[in-house]
């Protein structure tokens, strides 16, 4: 079944490219944006949202509907694992809703297909975390409003770290590795840290933190074999060659969470949703045994930023009301209420001043980490390159390939794929 879905996405992507060529002027040139205005919204607005978001939306939307009595919002929940296919086919068939929830990494694909409407100049939402804004831009236009953000930070067991002699979170790469080793030698951990042996995306924060970039500034050439990249790969590899990280961790879902709660692998890098998962798994009192921290620093301490954007589709019949709804969802007070309902981290910077977020030390870490984030180019080429990247990571971590050679191989593959920059 996953193979079928993958084939399907490729086919749909091909179909989209064909339709995009057939339509003139939609892709590339920023469309004349509608204006939002300030009056109440009217008519029907359809909104597709994924899983948990769709479940929690109606309660939040009640306030919007009370303020705009003439508007009806219909929320259709879309399963996460098939959402991408659903949006793709809807675009191909011209049956898109007014508003969609798009993963940040899907943006350029859908914007390039000419499916998204440009954000009106008078929307007046934000300011948002700069890391989240980057993926809303395409060819000089803005096509989405950040809804919530997601960034991995370091989770570590404070009780075991104290036993290993560390009272502070690891600040530098050296600290990080020393702590991981000490967890094994002095705190009884089987492995010091859970790192993904074959996940290129999981390696990216290390590359960025070491000052490496994926492409040249003009985004036309991959730079995957730069000295900074190779050095980062060598550092990442050392965790596996020195036995600090498991080369063959269990792939059972949630295995690393279980290993974290039982102390056998007392560190991992994970997103905000882990807090709730660990509370479920660890039971009462476990929250006092661990803390979150911003990633350890080399030249910088850069993490990955993901999340979801809200978009209005080009074919929307009620774009004005749709944009008003999006404006409502991006207000700081709505985003705080949304965070309380779902745990989704607010994209609006002002929302982070609210005591609900600023007062929770585990969460405030995410706010600080969001000041230093990056994301890979959201192109179809990147999606293809990731597979090659995963394969080289495996050579690096499992087979012990020389980092310079692995990254050179990856660079050669990448050069063949191209960056997709125009």
């Amino acid at each position, binding site marked *: 079944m996953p193979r079928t879905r993958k084939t399907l996405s490729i086919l749909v992507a091909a179909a989209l490219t064909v339709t995009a060529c057939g339509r003139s002027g939609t892709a590339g040139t920023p469309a004349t944006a509608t204006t939002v205005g300030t009056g109440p919204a009217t008519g029907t607005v359809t909104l597709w949202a994924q*899983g948990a978001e769709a479940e929690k939306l109606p309660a939040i939307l009640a306030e919007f509907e009370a303020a705009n009595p003439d508007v009806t919002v219909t929320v*259709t929940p879309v*399963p996460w694992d098939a959402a991408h*296919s*659903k949006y793709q086919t809807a675009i191909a*068939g011209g049956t898109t809703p007014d508003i969609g929830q798009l993963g940040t990494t899907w943006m350029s694909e859908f914007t390039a297909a000419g499916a998204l409407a440009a954000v009106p100049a008078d929307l007046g939402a934000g300011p948002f975390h700069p890391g989240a804004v980057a993926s809303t831009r395409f060819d000089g236009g803005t096509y989405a409003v950040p809804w919530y953000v997601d960034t991995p930070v370091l989770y570590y067991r404070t009780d075991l770290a104290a036993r290993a002699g560390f009272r502070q979170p690891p600040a530098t790469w050296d600290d990080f590795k020393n702590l991981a080793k000490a967890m094994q030698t002095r705190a009884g951990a089987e492995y010091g840290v859970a790192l993904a042996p074959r996940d290129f995306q999981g390696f990216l924060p290390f590359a960025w933190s070491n000052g490496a970039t994926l492409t040249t500034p003009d985004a036309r050439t991959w730079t995957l074999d730069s000295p900074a990249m190779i050095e980062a790969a060598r550092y990442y590899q050392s965790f596996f060659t020195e036995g600090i990280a498991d080369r063959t961790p269990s792939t*059972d879902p949630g*295995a690393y969470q279980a290993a974290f709660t039982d102390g056998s692998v007392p560190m991992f890098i994970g997103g905000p949703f882990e807090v709730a998962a660990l509370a479920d*798994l660890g039971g009462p009192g476990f929250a006092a045994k661990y803390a979150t921290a911003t990633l350890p620093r080399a030249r910088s301490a850069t993490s990955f930023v993901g999340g979801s954007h809200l978009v209005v589709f080009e074919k929307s019949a009620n774009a004005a009301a749709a944009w008003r709804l999006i404006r409502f969802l991006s207000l700081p007070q709505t985003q705080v209420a949304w965070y309380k309902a779902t745990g989704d981290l607010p994209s609006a910077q002002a929302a982070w001043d609210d005591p609900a977020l600023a007062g929770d030390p585990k969460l405030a870490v995410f706010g600080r980490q969001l000041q230093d984030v990056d994301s890979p180019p959201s192109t179809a080429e990147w999606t293809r390159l990731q597979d090659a990247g995963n394969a080289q990571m495996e050579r690096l971590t499992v087979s012990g390939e020389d980092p310079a050679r692995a990254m050179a191989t990856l660079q050669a593959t990448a050069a063949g794929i191209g960056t997709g920059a125009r």
Partner: protein
Amino acid sequence: MTARRVLLHAALIAAAALTVLPFLWMLLGSVKPDSEIRADPAAWLPHTPTLDNYRQWFGALRIGTYFGNSVLVALVTVLGNLLFCSMVGYALAKLRFPGRRLLFGLVMVTLMVPGVVTFVPLFVVVARLGLVDTYAGLILPFLTSPTGVFLMRQYLRSIPDELLEAARIDGAGEFRIFARVVLPLCGPPLATLGILQFLASWNNFLWPLVVAQSQDRYTLPVALSLYSTGEQATDYGLLLAGSVMVITPIVALFIALQRWFVQGVATAGLK
């Protein structure tokens, strides 16, 4: 001789156990709380059995709606296939008309084209017809299938021409021959076709996902994926309880039609 029998039975029981164990795990898991499902080492029997997962499905998640949709879509699809595939199969097997071989060739070609290739064009056609988010959109494209036509044609070729000629001499029209002489002989392949199409429709995920654009039209597999699989986490309790309910009708159907099914597959293979 007896030693061979014992060996044979031991092998069969082992194979059957291997097949049944995952289902047993699913069934037992569906009455466990999430922490027990993820527990390591895992235990077969639930420590604190709970019906919470089922309660959620029948309560807030309105499984009845999705179940009803799945049943409606599957039943109409099966009926359509039984009728249309047998008619087309009969025409291709027994009627002489120009272009018959070409038509059969075309059916065989569509049989060989993977579904994912026609998926998007099919969706665009359904969308242009304005059938998105309707039951018609969910059912219409699957009312007949090349596999079904092929299966029926192969079986129908085994019916002696003399039988049909006798009916013709007795003055029966083509439709009467089809309905009164041919169809009553087609029990086994129709049962096979019915089960295959029911399974295909019941398990279909991508098409209803894409065509149903409001929650009220979602079928069981879509709802299952919707509620159990999140962006980063999976609710295994809900997933297992939902899977039990998705599978139960299929197992019941198979047990009810087992005799026909086995016979149908065996004879279809022989012709």
